[in-house]
């Protein structure tokens, strides 16, 4: 699939498959439908889809003429951070469940699980800094602003729904995936007819 439309459709299929696998396995685990190690294994396996996903996204970007060095570096950083996240999260959960170490050790485990996510946020910042193409940089900044607006709006609305006992409490670390959804919305808003 060398045409921009074909490459883009292919990358969207992989993005869809990854989101379904990742959020689906997390939901199965959270609700206890697939619990214990099979559930965690399923969650970890869903991250393997990142490899074909990133390849298909890079092919789509190349077909659209936007496959810059900074973007490729960003993709690589995100994949590395994602795999580090899986390893540190699963390792942390295993240690916490089986040994229930004292609070300082659990604090370290929590920080270790959060670090790769912080590395992803840093990768986004570095992408804006390292992207030499001013038009692409402007698009990334726009996407980030749309994502931030989406996150603020969604968390404000959800916070009040929770305050009025209409929605359950959610974990704060969900802010990052919600922001990532906002990035996707930003890309849709920017939709480029030439590509």
């Amino acid at each position, binding site marked *: 699939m060398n045409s921009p439309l074909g490459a883009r459709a292919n990358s969207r299929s992989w993005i869809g498959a990854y989101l379904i696998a990742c959020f689906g396995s997390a939901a199965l685990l959270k609700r206890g439908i697939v619990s214990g190690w099979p559930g965690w294994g399923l969650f970890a396996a869903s991250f393997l889809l990142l490899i074909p996903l990133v390849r298909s996204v890079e092919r789509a970007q190349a077909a*659209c*003429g*936007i496959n*810059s060095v900074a973007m490729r570096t960003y993709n690589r950083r995100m994949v590395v951070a994602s795999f580090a996240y899986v390893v540190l999260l699963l390792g942390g959960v295993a240690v916490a469940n089986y040994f229930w170490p004292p609070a300082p050790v659990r604090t370290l485990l929590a920080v270790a699980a959060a670090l790769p996510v912080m590395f992803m946020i840093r990768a986004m910042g570095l992408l804006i800094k390292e992207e*030499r*193409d*001013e*038009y*692409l940089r*402007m698009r990334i900044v726009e996407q980030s602003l749309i994502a931030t607006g989406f996150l603020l709006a969604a968390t404000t609305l959800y916070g009040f729904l929770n305050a009025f006992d209409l929605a359950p409490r959610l974990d704060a670390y969900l802010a990052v995936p919600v922001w990532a959804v906002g990035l996707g919305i930003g890309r849709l808003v920017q939709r*480029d007819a*030439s*590509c």
Partner: protein
Amino acid sequence: MLNNLKVLRAMRNWSQGDLAEKLEVSRQSVNAIETGKYDPSLPLAFRIAELFDRPIEEIFVAPSRGSSRAI
């Protein structure tokens, strides 16, 4: 901002990809500038002008001058 980039490019028989390569920008950037969706920064506008060996005002039409100046 209106511009004559597409015409100047066509006169040299360059594709958008060729122009993007010469300017060291993405093909999508060239497309966005040509279609008026994006106004380049002053340094990039100067690079474009130098590449085509023309003054900036012959390539980009000031918004105050309207659309009649575009080739």
